[in-house]
């Protein structure tokens, strides 16, 4: 019993001692926070800190009754600070000594004095997201989109949501092609933006900014919403104020490639150089030629019209491959861009480039021509095509933005080009035929433009601008055929045709405009005056031995001159809400005075262009746009025709004799959706266009001297719907891209006064799937199915239908070896007609030898190199064309960045 009592006593003692120790080690502070009116203070921060105010020992938030409790205090110091903070009460603090906590519990009653504290308004710069949207600019952090395969800017843009790149390097953002690409806010390449996108190393880039409604002029920016898109590339700070660049070299047997690009982005000076020599046929970065780049041209459409006269022989087959393959071509170009700015807002840009290109292509073709007039010919062709182009461009641009109320620019471009091509064709089979064509063209074009914008005293902007161009071109064409047909034909025998043409032109446009912005809208109004004069000297000669016909026309001279005056105006709403609207209109008389040595009948000279639309913003990057327009113009390209143009079969086109102004009425509808965080983009575009109007033109076929009268585009209706959806399914680890387009054109044409109804349509569906697994092996599939149909209904030739399905696809396997190695294998397959296929296999491997050196090998093999293509060669015949292609090479390349 005594033992039991002792044990109990001992246990009680132990318990008491433990409790006591615990209480000593972990004391607590409690209390009540009250106002002077003895009301509880709720939500005050009660913090027990060390004496230096750096370390928080414990904290509590006062409750609804003003009470607080600080538990489990760690007593490792002799002095503490108890602080009380509340937005609406004065701060309270008190030193607490550890001796006060010996009892284990300190209870406080604290009264807080009211205060009128306001937090200072602050803005915190948050860490960047991969993208940012503000006003009209969407900004992407380049580093977030760079992958192991990303070399150039265009590779970088391919990885960013919303960008679409075409095979020839044109860049679209949500269906709209970009207008300019700026480097650090400076436009160095005008519309030749592909110079930057194809040459500039992606690693230099810090941010990619998509600027909507881009306008270069500072004053114009205040009132004008241009609807144009520009990309501004900002450079990584590491590469500012120093020379950096890339040197690439490749060899494929006897073919070499060399590519050097440098960039010096110093503060007020920017210097770019792009030099390229390429015999390998692979896509290279430096391009100068507008002819090769397509529609982009420093010169306006007036000049590019002259370059359109380059005929493309009808029988040349384009090798239907979109993967890398070696052609027998050689490109060399060098481009220098120097931009100098001063601190007074003036800048000077010099752009100089020279390029030359040559291409040789041989093809063996097997043709089966089925004519609607019941001939069925089987032909075997050997063709040789050679093309050589050489051109130089010097451009000078001066801009000033010195005064707050005046901006302006002046530019001058000089461009020369030599272009030549030879086409030879030997045909055997049901008839023997030999065709030889030679074409040469030289051009010299001087273009000058200027603009001055002035803010007037009453706030509006006054803009005066001009464009002037002077040029001359000389073309020479020669055609020789030896044709022996097994059927009776007037074109059998030896035929020769040659023509020479010299054209000199001068044109000028002067525009005076007023622009302003008010509560009611943004408006512009102005007057545009233009003058065109062209002088042509033409001679041609044709002879047909078997037909015993010949014609010679020496030194025919023609002068065309016209003036035009146009009033123009636009009105856009300034609504900052979701819905905005715009209208635009041009009215004028053009041309009001035509002097032409050929009599031309014109029906009405008034022209106009009207458009109106609505824009509904779903979000910053998404919206619905509807627009309608009606335009009426004179088909000036016909009456300003640069003389007869030789067609492949020796057809001479005369200038139009009769013009009926064309009208075009159309509606466009676009829905675009970009959801960057969800990696989702979608675009739906639909248009319906009605065209009416005509010109009467006579063509003579030489040497048969038969005449054909065309009245094209006499009523045409065109429907076009396209859409694309791109979605990155992160959960399933793949990206899906779908493109659909449907086009249908219904047109009426008159040929020799016989009405022809032509229906043309195209449907295509393109699906791409790209996997994005974490493991280093990924796949990509692409499949495109398309159908073309062409129906001709004519009283002369009867009805004729052609339709064709095409299937094009590839599968790609990408493998990665750590951070350094990359391998890609591509199998391409094209099913161009029911039985003919074409297969390619490409193998590409790249190794990152060091931080700045990449080595790569590309192997290409074209198998089953027989392709068959059906095409319509004229209004009344189709051809099944079998092409032999050979493409096999191994390309070794190295790229060094500095």
């Amino acid at each position, binding site marked *: 019993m005594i033992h039991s009592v002792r044990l109990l006593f001992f246990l009680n003692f132990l318990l008491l001692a433990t409790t006591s120790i615990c209480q000593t080690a972990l004391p607590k502070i409690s209390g009540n926070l009250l106002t002077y009116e003895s009301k509880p203070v*709720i*939500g*005050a*921060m009660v*913090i027990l800190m060390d004496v230096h105010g*750096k*370390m*928080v020992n414990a*904290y509590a*938030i006062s*409750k*609804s009754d003003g009470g607080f409790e600080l538990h489990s205090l760690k007593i490792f110091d002799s002095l503490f600070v108890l602080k009380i*903070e*509340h*937005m*609406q009460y004065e701060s309270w603090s008190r030193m607490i000594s550890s001796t006060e906590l010996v009892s284990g519990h300190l209870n406080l009653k604290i009264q807080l004095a009211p205060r009128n504290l*306001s*937090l200072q*308004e*602050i*803005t*915190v*710069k*948050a*860490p960047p*997201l991969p993208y940012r949207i503000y006003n009209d600019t969407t900004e992407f952090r380049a580093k977030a989109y760079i992958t192991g395969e990303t070399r150039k800017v265009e590779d970088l843009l391919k990885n960013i949501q919303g960008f679409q790149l075409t095979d020839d390097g044109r860049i679209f953002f949500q269906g709209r092609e970009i207008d300019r690409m700026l480097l650090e806010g400076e436009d160095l390449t005008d519309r030749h933006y592909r110079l930057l996108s194809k040459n500039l190393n992606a690693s230099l880039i810090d941010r990619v900014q998509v600027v909507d409604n881009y306008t270069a002029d500072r004053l114009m920016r205040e009132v004008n919403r241009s609807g144009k898109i520009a990309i501004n590339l900002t450079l990584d700070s590491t590469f500012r104020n120093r020379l950096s660049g890339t040197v690439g070299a490749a060899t494929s047997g006897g073919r070499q490639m060399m590519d050097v690009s440098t960039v010096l982005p110093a503060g007020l000076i920017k210097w770019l150089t792009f030099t390229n020599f390429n015999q390998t046929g692979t896509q290279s970065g430096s391009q100068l030629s507008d002819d090769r780049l397509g529609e982009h041209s420093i010169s306006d459409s007036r000049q590019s019209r002259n370059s359109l006269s380059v005929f493309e022989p009808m029988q040349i087959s384009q090798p239907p491959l979109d993967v890398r393959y070696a052609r027998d071509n050689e490109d060399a170009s060098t481009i220098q861009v120097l931009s100098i700015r001063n601190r007074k807002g003036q800048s000077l840009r010099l752009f100089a480039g020279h390029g030359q290109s040559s291409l040789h292509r041989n093809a063996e073709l097997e043709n089966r021509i089925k004519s609607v007039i019941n001939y069925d010919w089987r032909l075997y062709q050997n063709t040789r095509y050679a093309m050589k182009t050489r051109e130089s461009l010097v451009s000078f641009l001066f801009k000033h933005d010195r005064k707050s109320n005046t901006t302006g620019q002046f530019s001058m471009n000089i461009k020369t080009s030599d272009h030549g091509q030879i086409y030879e064709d030997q045909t055997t089979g049901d008839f023997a035929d030999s065709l030889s064509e030679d074409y040469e063209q030289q051009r010299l074009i001087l273009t000058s433009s200027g603009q001055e914008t002035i803010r007037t005293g009453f706030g509006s902007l006054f803009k005066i601008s001009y464009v002037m161009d002077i040029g001359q071109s000389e073309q020479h064409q020669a055609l020789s055929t030896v044709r022996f047909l097994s059927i009776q034909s007037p074109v059998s025998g030896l035929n020769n045709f040659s023509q020479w043409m010299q054209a000199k032109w001068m044109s000028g446009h002067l525009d005076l405009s007023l622009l302003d912005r008010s509560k009611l809208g943004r408006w512009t109004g102005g007057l545009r005056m233009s003058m065109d004069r062209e002088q042509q000297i033409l001679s041609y000669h044709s002879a047909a031995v078997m037909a015993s016909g010949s014609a010679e026309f020496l030194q025919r001279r023609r002068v065309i001159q016209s003036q035009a005056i146009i009033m123009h105006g636009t009105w856009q709403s300034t609504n900052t809400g979701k819905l905005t609207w715009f209208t635009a209109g041009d009215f004028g008389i053009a041309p009001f005075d035509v002097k032409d040595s050929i009599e031309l009948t014109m029906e009405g000279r008034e022209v106009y262009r009207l458009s109106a639309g609505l824009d509904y913003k*779903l*979000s910053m990057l*998404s919206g619905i746009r509807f627009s309608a327009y009606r335009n009426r113009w004179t088909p000036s390209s016909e009456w300003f025709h640069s003389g007869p143009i030789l067609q492949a079969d020796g057809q001479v086109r005369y200038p139009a004799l009769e013009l009926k102004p064309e009208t075009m009425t159309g509606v466009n509808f676009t829905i675009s*959706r970009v*959801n960057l*965080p*969800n*990696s*989702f983009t979608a675009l739906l575009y639909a248009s319906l266009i009605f065209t009416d109007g005509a010109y009467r033109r006579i063509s003579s076929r030489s040497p048969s001297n038969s005449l054909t009268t065309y009245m094209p585009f006499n009523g045409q209706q065109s429907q076009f719907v396209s859409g694309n959806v791109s*979605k990155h*399914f*992160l*959960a*399933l*680890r793949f990206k899906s891209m779908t493109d659909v387009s449907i086009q249908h054109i219904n047109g009426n044409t008159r040929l020799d006064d016989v009405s022809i109804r032509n229906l043309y349509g195209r449907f295509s569906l393109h699906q791409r799937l790209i996997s994005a697994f974490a493991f280093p092996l990924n796949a990509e599939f692409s499949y495109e199915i398309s159908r073309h149909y062409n129906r001709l209904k004519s009283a002369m030739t009867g009805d004729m239908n052609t339709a064709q399905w095409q299937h094009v696809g590839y599968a790609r396997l990408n493998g990665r070896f750590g951070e350094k190695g990359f391998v890609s294998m591509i199998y391409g397959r094209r099913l161009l007609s029911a039985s003919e296929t074409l297969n390619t296999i490409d193998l590409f491997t790249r190794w990152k030898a060091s931080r700045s050196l990449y080595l790569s090998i590309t192997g290409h093999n074209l198998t089953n190199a027989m392709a068959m293509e059906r095409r319509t060669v004229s209004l009344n015949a189709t051809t099944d064309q079998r092409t032999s292609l050979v493409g096999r090479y191994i390309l070794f390349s190295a790229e060094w960045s500095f």
Partner: protein
Amino acid sequence: MKLFTLLSLLLTYSYVQTEAQPLRTYIITYQGVFNVKHDLDKQFRPYRSVLIEQHDASHFFMQPGQMEGGVNEVMIESDTSFRVFKQPSANKLIFGEPDLAGKEKFYEDTLHSMRWSLSEEVKQIDSITCKKADAWFRGRHYTAWYAPSIPIPNGPWKMGGLPGLIIELREAKGDMHFMLESIRMASITDLKQNPVMQKNHPDIQAYIIYWQKLIARMKGMAAAQPGSDCLTCQTAPSIQIRRWEKLPL
């Protein structure tokens, strides 16, 4: 009767006066990024988040962009319990979320129930000196950077209860990340007058039961679906509910 009418008018007037009485308010905005795929994958979505802070009430909400789901994916945003009302004097937290019909329903939860572990680590975010705190809350680990210089014991979403305003909040995997963008002054009527705060709402247990029932119902519906033309499928249709807060569902 006249007296009654007068009294009624007076009462209405006083009520309107009370309603219209603006209080000093802080509009605190956060830039937020949230992984809508939760643990399954990464699909980040930015949010502009607003915390309206008054003396004894706060209202937090997020403004997400539009969301497009995949072809075979149903996205029920039940996990985005982003609208949160807090009333410290009543120790009350009310959160809202849309039900399957898209109608927002409200439930009560415990105010700042997470247990923060304070650290001495200091970080400078812009011009604000912040201290670090960590907490586990409903299956996830959060790190908060709070500013002792800003005596607002609140933060984005359900987070708060720290000795200073939460300037940055980051979930351990980075699936939720808030960063203070700005603090602005404003005068707004008392948040406690908001009908949501004046009503009583079901508690978190009721919320859990609601979801348990819903999941059971959805599983039943999925199981009742015909197996289309798949005769050899080895797997039954499955329903996965991905929630941000890991509650015992």
